[in-house]
Every structure is written in C-alpha cells, then in structure tokens.
C-alpha cells in the first residue's frame, strides 16, 4: 500500500500535479527526513474543514497526503484509534501496545494533573513531550476556542483525555514549531464568535495574544477552507519555503490586500470581462448577472475562488463551481468579520 517517494513522484508527474506545483517544490517537500508530524486539534468546529480537505485533488489527494506527506498524529475524524490511544497518538512517536497499556495505567492514575513533560521515575513516560518538541511539529487548529471556567468541571468544548480545547491549545501551541489555523472559526472566531458569542469563542491569533505566546502562525480561512489552499501552503511549509502573509495573516498569493485580489476583480461579472457593454445585473434572486445589489460581498472579500473554484474533478483541474457562478452572492466567508460584518447576506428586494 505504501508508496515510496520515488513512486509518488512518478505518479505525480503522470497525473499532472507537477504542472500545478513546481517539481522542485514537491521534491523538497518529499526530501525532508520524512514524517513531518502534524497534530490536528478540533475545537468548536463543524468538521467541515476536515471534510473539505478530503476533497483535495487539484494539488494532490488526501490519500497521498496521509500516505506520503504527513504523519497525522491526532485527528479525531480520521484516526483509527479511539479514546486514550488517540490522545496518545498526538503526543508521542508511535508507541507500541505494551507501552500504551502501561501509559494508560499512569494516565488513569494521574488524571488531568499529569504534566506532559514530567519524567516519572521508573515508569514509562509515553508522552515524551520533550522528544516530540525536539522532533518538531506543526499544529493545525480547526474550529474556535471557547473560554472555559477553570472552576467548572463542565467545558464548552472537551476534546478528550480530560483536556478542554482551551487547555490542549495552550499546551500544544506553546511548543509547536508553527501553527496553521484552518478555516474562519480557527482564524478569527467565525460563527461561534458571532453575537452574542455564547461561549466566549476566539480564534487562534486572539487566543495567542491572550496567552502571551508569540508563534509563527498562518491563517487559512474560509467556511470551510478550500482544500487546495491548505495543501499548497502545507507543501510550501514542508519544503522550507517562506510563506508571505497578507495583513490578515493569510498566504498573500491566495488571499492578499490589493484590490486586484478581491473576489470582485476576478469575478465573471467584473466590468473588465464585458468590454463594450455593461455586465448583466441580477434584479432579484435567481436572476443571471452581477449580484451586488442582492448582497454580494465580492468587493470586500479577498480570495481566488473565482479562478480556483470549488470541488475540482482531478489533478491540475480547477473546480466545477463557486458561489457567484451558482447565482449565489459571495457571503465573504474568508474575512475576519464573517459572519457579523457580512450579514444580512441577502439584500435588495
């Protein structure tokens, strides 16, 4: 089942992946010492960003990512292990079952007070957090982080292993080499943070400020994030390339700050695409044409949706559709003020 790196390059070449990504970038990403460890934390998320990632194909497919590119230590939707096994997977390099059993004993004895980096004399310390930190890891966060009450045993978001999302994030973010906030909830708080923010939810950058940590962070927003935004960025990180960020902490080539990078500028109804005539205007929902008077947020949204589109059919191919092409106003899902600053989504008569 497991493809060698050489096999992968062959298939990648044949499938046209190399026409999307420069070959040397793929080679660099593959040439690392293998097993880049990725820990995936799901907070207040709908799992939509995970599901979206399963749709990745234009750049490379999810099976390729899992088989060849990353060592996904903890991801609750995909992982084969359950319970403590899964939590342990996040924290140590491949323990065997005997070690796991020993660990489980210790974990259950110590409960939430167990310190990840404490060496317990005479006992297997499976969660060898120091070793993990030496090896380095990328922390991917999906979903927002609610404000818990330390005095209350009940948490708004419990991720398992006696950890609230807030605790897990504060431990894992402190030691991560780099953090990728995936999806608008993780980047900026998204829908859980919307008025009245019933759980005190925050996105990663705000939470880092609250914790006083300064960490290299890449925001890949979107509700959900487009799978190719994530895969392209991850490949660049693995290849050691610098990812230039825009003013909102997002990869500048995919999002950006200039007016030419707005959804509007790339839209099929932008006046530049209708030389000699005005673009058609939709008068009411369901009509064909520019949706500005019906609430389209394309003028205040920066992303490459109109070009990349969504749900690609194969390697190197753009997607089959996107919001405006489906006659639906862009709702601005990649912006920090989504959703409160973008509602009402539909305007006009």
């Amino acid at each position, binding site marked *: *089942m497991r493809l060698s790196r050489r096999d992968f390059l062959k298939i990648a070449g044949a499938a046209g992946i190399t026409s999307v990504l420069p070959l040397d970038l793929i080679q660099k990403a593959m040439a690392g010492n293998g097993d880049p460890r990725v820990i995936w934390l799901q907070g207040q*998320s*709908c799992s*939509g*960003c995970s*599901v979206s990632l*399963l*749709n990745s*194909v234009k750049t490379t497919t*999810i099976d390729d990512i*899992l*088989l060849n590119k990353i*060592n996904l*230590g903890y991801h*609750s*939707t*995909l*992982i*084969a*292990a*359950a*319970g*403590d*096994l*899964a939590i342990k997977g996040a924290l140590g390099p*491949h*323990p065997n*079952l005997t070690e796991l*059993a020993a660990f489980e004993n210790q974990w*259950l*004895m110590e409960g939430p007070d167990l310190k990840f980096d404490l060496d317990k004399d005479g006992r297997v310390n499976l969660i060898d957090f120091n070793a993990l930190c030496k090896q380095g890891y990328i922390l991917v966060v999906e979903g927002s982080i609610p404000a818990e009450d330390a005095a*209350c045993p*009940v*948490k*708004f978001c*419990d*991720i*398992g*292993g006696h950890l609230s999302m807030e605790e897990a994030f504060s431990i894992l973010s402190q030691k991560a080499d780099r953090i990728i906030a995936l999806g608008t909830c993780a980047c900026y708080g998204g*829908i859980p943070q919307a*008025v*009245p*923010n*019933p*759980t005190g939810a925050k996105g990663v950058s705000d939470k880092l400020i609250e914790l006083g940590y300064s960490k290299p962070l890449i925001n890949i927003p979107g509700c959900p994030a487009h799978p190719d935004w994530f895969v392209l960025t991850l490949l660049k990180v693995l290849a050691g390339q610098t990812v230039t960020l825009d003013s909102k902490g997002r990869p500048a080539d995919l999002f950006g700050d200039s007016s030419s990078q707005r959804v509007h500028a790339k839209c099929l109804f932008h006046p530049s695409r209708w030389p000699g005539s005005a673009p058609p205007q939709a008068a009411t*929902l*369901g009509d064909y044409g520019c949706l500005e008077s019906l609430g389209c947020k394309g003028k205040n949204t920066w992303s490459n949706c109109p070009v990349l589109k*969504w749900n690609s059919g194969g390697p190197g191919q753009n*997607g*089959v*559709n*996107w*919001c405006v092409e*489906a*006659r*639906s106003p862009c709702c601005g899902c990649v912006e920090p003020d989504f*959703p409160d600053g973008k*509602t009402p*989504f*539909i305007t006009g008569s």
Partner: protein
Amino acid sequence: MATTFTIDPITRIEGHLKIEVTVDTVDNQLQVVDARSCGVMFRGFEKILINHDAFDAPIISQRICGVCPVSHAMASCLSLENAFGATPPANGRILRNLVLGANYIQSHILHFYHLAALDYINTQSILDMAPWAPRFTTPDMLSGAPAETFVSHYVQALTIRRKAHQMGALFGGKLPHLASFMPGGCLDVASTEKIAAFRALLDEIKQFIDTVFVPDTQALKDLFPQYSQIGLGCGKLLAYGVFDLNEAGTSKLLARGRYDGTSVEPLDPAVITEDVKYSWFSSPSGLNPSVGETEADRYKEGAYSWTKAPRYNGQVYELGPLARMWVNGDYRNGISAMDRLMARALEAQKIAYAMDSADHTSGWLNELSVGAPSYTKPVIPTAPALLNGIGLTEAPRGALGHWSTINPYIPAGSSTAKGKILRYQVITPTSWNASPRDDQNQPGPLEQALIGTPVADISQPVEILRVIHSFDPCLACSVHLLRPDRKKPQTVVQTGCCL
C-alpha cells in the same frame, strides 16, 4: 465488580461525543450494564441566529455540521417557506433533491469506509502509520487478504465520495457548505452541460455502490453474524421523510412515519418534546421546539450532556437510514448494529437510482426542464404579526427539524416586508440517537443499544465502538474506562451534532 469506563474521545465520528460505559459480569460474560452518552461541545447556534435576517438562516445554520450541511440548509429553507407560505418551482425542488442526494451518498460512503469499517478490519500490517496507527487490534478482526481488499476499497472510497461532493457542487456552488439553497428554491439553474456532468459522475458512483459498497457491507454482515444480534436499541424507529416528489411535499421518496415496535404509524410533530433534566440547560424541560428555549447552564447539577433529549409523545425513538428504510417498507430484516450498516448502503443505492434510472430514461435528472426557473423569491406576509415555520427533512444520520419564528416588518423606505428571526430551534438526529436520559430517566437509543453489549477484552472495547459507529453519530466521540480503583473518576468525551 462493576467497572465504568469512558472511551474518550470516540474518534471517527464527526463532532465531539463522549460515552461513559459501565461493564460488569452477567451470566459469566463481561458486558455493558450501563451507558451514558454525553455531547461535549457547545456553540450556541440557536442564540446566534436570533435577530438575524430570515434569509441568513440557511447560510448560518448549515454550519452546524460540515458533514450534513445540505440537510440543515434544506430544513432551514423548508421552515422559512412554511412560515412564508412559499413553494419553490419544480426545478428548485428537484435541484435541491439532487444536491441533498449527492451529499447523502458521500456521507454514507464516508461513514462506512472511513469511520465504521476500521472497527472490523485489522489494518496494522498494511498501514502501520498515523492516522491508522496506533489502533485497537482484536483477534476477531479481519486480516490478511480480506483486510487488504478493504484497505484498497478505503482508498477507492476516498475518490468516490469526493466525486459525490463534486456532483453536488454542480448545483450547490460548493461543498461542504453550499451557496445556492434559499427559501424559494435553488438559485443555481439546470443546464444541459451540468446535467450531463452530474450523470457521468453518478454513473461511476452507482457502479461503486453496486459492485463495492453494497457487497462489502453484505460481506461484513455475513462475516460478523453476532452483530445482527447486538446493539438492538429501543426498537422504535422514526422518520420525518425526505426527497419531496411533488410541490406539496405530500409524496416523498422516503416516507414520513414511525414504527412503534409493532406497526408503522403516522407522525404528528406536535407531540415532539425536548427534555433537559440531564442536559446543561436551565430552560424549561418538555417543550415542543416551536416554543423551545436554549439557556446554557454549565453548573447544572446532575446534567451530563450538551444535547437535549428529544422524545416522541414521551417515548424513545431511533432515527437514521434504518428508520427511513423500515418506515418506507424497503428494509425490515431487523434492528441491530449490522442492520444499520446494511440499511445505510441500500439507501445510498436507492437514492442513486432515484436520481437517474439505470437506463437514464427516468429519475430526477430527467424531470429537470432546462431553462425553467428554479427559484421564486417568497413574498413575506406582514400578517399575522408572527410567522411560524416547521422544516422537517432528513440528514444522512436521521430526521432533522428546524423550527422558526419570524417577525415580519417593513423597513423604512421599502414596500416589501423583511423578516427577522425571533426564535430558532433545531433538533439534530444525533440529539435523538445520542440523547441523554429524559425526565422519566429513560436512556436514549444509543445508551439502550450499548446495554448488553458483550466486551471480550476491556483494554480494547472494540465491541462498544462497533455499536456506537453503527448509529453514525455526528459527534467527535470518546469513550472512557471509569475504574473504581483509580484516584479520580475519569470523564469521557465525544460530541456530535452539538449546537
């Protein structure tokens, strides 16, 4: 001596769910004697929706779940259409069915291959790497050649479910979280090219369902016959019905109804209530969702879940593909862990062929008329003062309802009314299936299904996972062992379909 444990988090479930299980020896057999299902994540969607423009609801509410966003968008549209007295044109109804059907298929395939089958297959020698390792491996799991076949189907299924999403995006704009469902129909339109593209993808998906998905599920059912006797649950099934075949919604591909243990009976939404005795909410218990309330209270004594306990006339009902197929008369072999898997695969097949018959001459794709409108914007009535809407449909994992109360008003300088959300209540299928106990202390369907499940090796409680996963709970789920000899009681975590 009874041992309580928690599998926490229960992985391979979308969301956050925790199951606390007590195991004891009964008749010389270690088995589950008690179970508590706890939703462990809360966001407060029903509060967030209040004061929003009514047309924001399909876009915001579908973000409750990234696995069944289409069902939430559909329930939201139906609820608002019901409130406004609006009916979409035929093309709008059919396009929405096609997108919903595409998402059912991707969800059912994802559930079987990527979430449930790994409980039965030992992949250790084939995929000894994360995220497939570490994992439970019990002697009864399939290994060798059959396991290799399953793993190759696992990889193939990744492609097929992606194509199912691609198919839905043709008319949805994008998936997950689509753009085109609005009260009044579907904003995207049917074109000859898109119908052809949909058909081509569907042909490939049908072939996978016929030659891989259904046979694999049948094979698993035959190889593990004991699981047709395990995870029986409450024995009562309920379906709101889905895939409207006429504009009035009176005819559906999968009918509305309930099986009370003896016969299939009609369903009256007025007797649905939600209890909160064991949920972290301070709002009154036993309310019908049309007057429902959601006040979070993390400090509530005795509570153990972020999901409420929905009940039909005070009784516990199970939802899902098995309930739909049973009520509709398509599958009545039994109610068990394996029957849930089997009904799910057969339902995917039924939906695929309803979209387009094998010879391409009938089905929903054929009923589309190219060029006809798929959307009519509803006119919001200004009387009565408050508009109430009920939107009942089905998500892949069971009946889904959105109840809305809209306050219509005419903004200054406008002649057309707008609507503001005054109340919004959602009951997700997992809220029923993974519900905590109700006010009468009756355990929920999943809790009941777990009780009596034999456990061979307490360090690898894979039997419990098999029962839990048969429900496809939309929760990131965890199970914990609670052992009396430990210093501290352990908590369990997993959630799904939490609001």
